[in-house]
């Protein structure tokens, strides 16, 4: 490969010029392959950025290496396309965190510069894969979230196919008697009005009595099979909103409270039905219910309900107390609860009910619901353990209502899964906590593991009508966004706009399938030869497949095993000096690398032995590059990545966890070379660790020093 014509620009600003010799760095650069132009400036981010542009044009530079500040800043100034840009961090990682005018510091800067030039030589400009895209949005489920999603996408200018399993749109709204309204009041649910507003939109097509038999493809080119009353049809869509809602906890679960046994014990859903029908009459004898016990069935001791009941259960209990009191001023309500979950302004409903003299709030755990009273005056006796006063309370009621929690459809047994994805990784939407189709991130609630499919409403979180509608609108935004990004060949969150995608040197692929298993987003399918096929619009460009491949046939144009190996190979490994250790560091670009930058911003001293290679995710580090490094003679390798496990912080879900598993291979190499395991360590690092890192990394270097230099140097 002919060397790529490259310009090297060493900035002297922000203390770099005082810390290292820029003249010596230019000399280093001039000796590297392909380097045609070298320059210094007191600040390349200001007027002198124009000089780089001029050089690109006049000299026909293909690549530019800017040795200045962190790649985290000045990104638009140094966006010099069509030239490829590689940033070398001489500011945060050298000038601001190393001893000035020191031989070891100069060696560090020299290495970093050569690493940058090597990386630039092993980068090709990424080219987007652009294919025709369908922009239609499929919304599955026509409850409040689905209706909101459909209307939002339509008003945003997109065609929508709205699919509803039942004969009518409206979802659970059709079963509600009243909804919550401002000022702690209740209002009728205008479900017909809401549905009409959606269906009146010329861009919305509704298919009722229809389920989704399968979804295959990728953003911009999904094919969904709809199974309706007139048979199956396929529809091409750009993206999918999954708004399949919830099922109430099964009545059988509340058998201990008499639900299903005693006709006057009813569920919260049946309470809505009763009140919607008209007068509140006891199912057993048709007499008006004057004393109603509402059991929230909440709190940790209640095992009938879900462990997470959320605020909807509390709010429904309060609402149903209001139903009773509004229709009969003489009626009495006993509300037995353990946790009144009315956060925020839901509090105002709680207060309104507290102030109602006809509602008796009993904080406690229900122990028994039993029939009581004589024939002709049958009623129920509820015994609750009062957890405030630590005694039993007995209540007599005509009607008992138990509050059912909401089970997301994504947590229902297989087969009832609403989308039936035809993905190699399985048909179900990956779920997070408690079976919700949620991404497990606070900051990015639509960071789905199935790109282009966004959940909304009660399949996403347990939430009320208003919040479900907001969730639906939000999911619609993500649905139209992914279509636009797919149409221009760009990645979506978190590497938004990234063009390059993984390419496979298929002649060397062993069809082991590991990449297809490890991809957190299920982007890879298998062809007839069991070779991987990339769905570029599902791909989020994390590089985990590249890290997974045991024969290293997966690469991005601008990020590859070859590139990282090339960077590693240009680092000087002094053979004659036991003191001059070299530690290779792979640092997650989103967390560990900024933490190192912030160490510099705080002018904390980092060990001068470190040579940092930023990586997209620790999961993109192939075991072979680590093994090569120790074989070549690096004294140690530190892998800085995010927390794994249930509270994982990896934005690619399991990158650091997967790397951890690959470490077995690395340990095998170390064993074969008779090197100590401690030379290669995964160090969990968060972005808040700027102050901790100097100590942690210093300790690592000292540990290596204790082991002595790597004897493999020079072999």
């Amino acid at each position: 490969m002919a060397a790529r014509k490259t310009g090297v620009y060493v900035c002297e600003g922000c203390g770099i010029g005082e810390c290292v010799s820029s003249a010596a760095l230019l000399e280093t650069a001039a000796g590297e392959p392909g380097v045609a132009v070298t320059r210094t400036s007191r600040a390349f981010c200001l007027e002198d950025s124009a000089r780089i542009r001029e050089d690109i044009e006049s000299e026909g530079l293909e690549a530019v290496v800017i040795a200045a500040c962190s790649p985290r800043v000045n990104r638009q100034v140094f966006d010099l396309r069509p030239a490829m840009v590689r940033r070398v961090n001489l500011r945060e990682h050298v000038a601001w965190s190393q001893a000035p005018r020191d031989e070891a510091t100069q060696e560090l800067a020299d290495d970093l510069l050569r690493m940058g030039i090597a990386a630039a030589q092993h980068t090709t400009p990424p080219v987007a894969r652009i294919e025709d895209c369908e922009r239609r949005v499929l919304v599955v489920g026509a409850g409040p979230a689905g209706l909101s999603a459909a209307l939002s996408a339509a008003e945003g200018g997109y065609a929508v196919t709205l699919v509803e399993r039942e004969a009518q749109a409206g979802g659970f709204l059709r079963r509600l008697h009243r909804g919550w309204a401002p000022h702690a009041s209740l209002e009728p649910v205008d479900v017909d009005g809401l549905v009409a507003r959606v269906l009146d939109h010329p861009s919305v097509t509704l298919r009722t009595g229809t389920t989704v038999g399968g979804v295959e493809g990728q953003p911009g080119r999904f094919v969904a099979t709809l199974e309706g009353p007139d048979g199956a049809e396929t529809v091409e869509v750009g993206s999918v909103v999954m708004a399949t809602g919830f099922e109430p906890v099964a009545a059988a679960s509340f058998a201990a409270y008499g639900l299903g046994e005693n006709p006057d014990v009813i569920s919260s859903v049946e309470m809505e039905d009763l009140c919607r029908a008209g007068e509140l009459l006891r199912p057993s004898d048709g007499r008006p219910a004057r004393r109603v016990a509402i059991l929230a069935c909440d709190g940790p001791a209640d095992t009938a309900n879900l462990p997470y009941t959320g605020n909807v259960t509390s709010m429904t209990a309060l609402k149903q107390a209001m139903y009773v009191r509004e229709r009969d001023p003489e009626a009495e309500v006993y509300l037995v609860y353990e946790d009144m979950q009315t956060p925020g302004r839901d509090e105002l409903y709680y207060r309104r009910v507290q102030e109602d003299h006809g509602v008796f709030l009993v904080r406690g755990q229900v122990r028994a619901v039993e029939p009581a009273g004589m024939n002709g005056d049958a009623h129920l006796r509820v015994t609750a353990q009062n957890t405030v006063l630590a005694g039993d309370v007995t209540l007599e009621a005509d009607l008992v209502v138990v509050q059912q929690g909401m089970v997301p459809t994504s947590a229902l047994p297989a087969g009832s899964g609403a989308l039936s994805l035809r993905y190699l990784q399985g048909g179900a939407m990956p779920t997070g906590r408690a079976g919700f189709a949620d991404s497990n991130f606070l900051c990015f609630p639509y960071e789905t593991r199935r790109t282009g499919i966004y959940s909304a409403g009660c399949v996403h979180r347990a939430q009320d009508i208003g919040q479900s509608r907001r969730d639906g609108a939000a999911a619609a935004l993500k649905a139209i966004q992914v279509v636009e990004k797919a149409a221009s060949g760009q990645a979506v969150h978190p590497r938004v706009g990234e063009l390059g995608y993984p390419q496979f040197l298929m002649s060397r692929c062993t069809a082991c399938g590991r990449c297809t298993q490890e991809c957190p987003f299920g982007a890879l399918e298998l062809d007839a030869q069991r070779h991987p096929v990339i769905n570029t619009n599902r791909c989020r460009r994390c590089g985990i497949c590249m890290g997974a491949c045991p024969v290293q046939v997966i690469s991005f144009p601008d990020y590859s095993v070859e590139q990282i190996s090339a960077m590693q190979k240009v680092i000087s490994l002094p053979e004659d000096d036991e003191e001059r250790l070299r530690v290779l560091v792979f640092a997650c670009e989103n967390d560990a690398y900024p933490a190192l930058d912030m160490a510099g911003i705080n002018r904390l001293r980092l060990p001068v032995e470190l040579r940092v290679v930023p990586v997209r995710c620790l999961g993109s580090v192939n075991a072979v590059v680590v093994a090569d490094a120790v074989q070549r003679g690096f004294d140690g390798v530190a892998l800085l990545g995010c927390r794994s496990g249930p509270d994982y912080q990896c934005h690619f879900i399991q990158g650091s966890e997967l790397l951890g598993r690959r470490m077995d291979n690395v340990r095998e190499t170390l064993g074969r070379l008779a090197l100590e395991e401690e030379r290669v360590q995964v160090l969990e690092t968060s972005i808040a660790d700027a102050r901790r890192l100097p100590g942690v990394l210093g300790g690592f270097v000292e540990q290596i020093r204790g082991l002595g230099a790597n004897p493999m140097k020079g072999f």
Partner: protein
Amino acid sequence: MSSVAKVEAGPDVSGSGHDAVLVVGGGIAGITAALEAAEAGMSVHLVERAPQLGGRVAQLARYFPKLCPPTCGLEINYQRLRDNRAVRLLTTTEVESISGGPGAYAVRLRVEPRFVTDRCTMCNACAEVCPVDRPNAFDYGMSTTRTAYLPHEAAYPARYAIDASTCLFDECAKCVDACAYGAIDLHMQPEIVELRVGAVIIATGWRPYDARAITNLAFGHSPNVITNVMMERMAAESGPTGGRIVRPSDGAPVRSVAFIQCAGSRDRLHLRYCSSICCLASLKEASLVLDRNPDAQVHVFYIDLRTPGTYEAFAAGVLGHPQVHAVKGKVADILEDPGTGELVVVADDMVGAGMSRTRVDLVVLATGMAPSLGDAPTAGVDLDEDGFVVEGTDAEGILVAGCARAPVDVATATVDATAAAMRAIALVRRSAAGGSGGVPRRKEA
């Protein structure tokens, strides 16, 4: 007169016509709304009052329930902003007025001088020569910075600012000479910017309720009574103590802490609503206390613990810790032992036996969220009786996201913001298509 503040996520908003969206407030809701709209193809103006983005979340040590640092998500968002030319960011900017209606708003902005231009390289030379300290509002006054300062280590934009309230200006001007890049302009003047936009999203967030107003809880009287937001800064590695949890009076490690819930919330005299996040925030802070001071005892005084949905598992984990003691009861008084600086929390224990007295090193008041606009309304934005923004009927008109709408957690604020972005796009496109703002086009009969 200097030009309007420019940042690296530079303005590239075509024509400033009614096809753009204005997002007011650069906290987590505003950043999210701006980015989501921009990544779906809109031009966006994002305005923020402070010199940096991030709002209240940037000041938090950790998020519940994962105990992850907010900077992690903000970093991703800042990279999205850095790479996105469709978002025009204006910091040190407030909205003076909004007029017009859905699809066609006229907005008047006031840009306060930052005194540092976009030539700033973040080199720190100005701060090195600056002779005057200022109280650091980012640390709620628990630390100081120089008057020429970087808002914080992860600040976006990564640019210094000069505090007009403490700067000596021409009397000193040392920073002007020290700056090798000519980035300091002490004569910068306020500017008025007028915009036309199709939709407005209010994401102005919240401020901590003033704890001094709750007279029985000793805030302002004893240095060892702090608020929950101050606790976040103390627990943050970037905060005034480097993440050590200590007594403000003498810097000694804290052996016992009392969290007082509903300090101002659910109280007719203060905030009548529940502030929604304080129970979880205190339980999170309790975890941080135990992480930093493993032998500490933690007492949580509460009325109800509001930990809805899947947060229940997180709450149960913290409450199950043997050194965490939850007491259901209202705190009547906080007394200071003048000899030791210790505090005695007097509470009406509703489950145990009457009044309890608990001796602790530190009291943390779980002060609630007051909407930022509540005492500083913007012309053209309707507020309800609690100071939250009233959203137009069926979300048409002025849109609202995050704690400007209601007291919410981050997970809800980001959903809200994404929804507001969708509604803004719908509003702009509907108006552009000639439909009136409020009524969708009907199908042909």
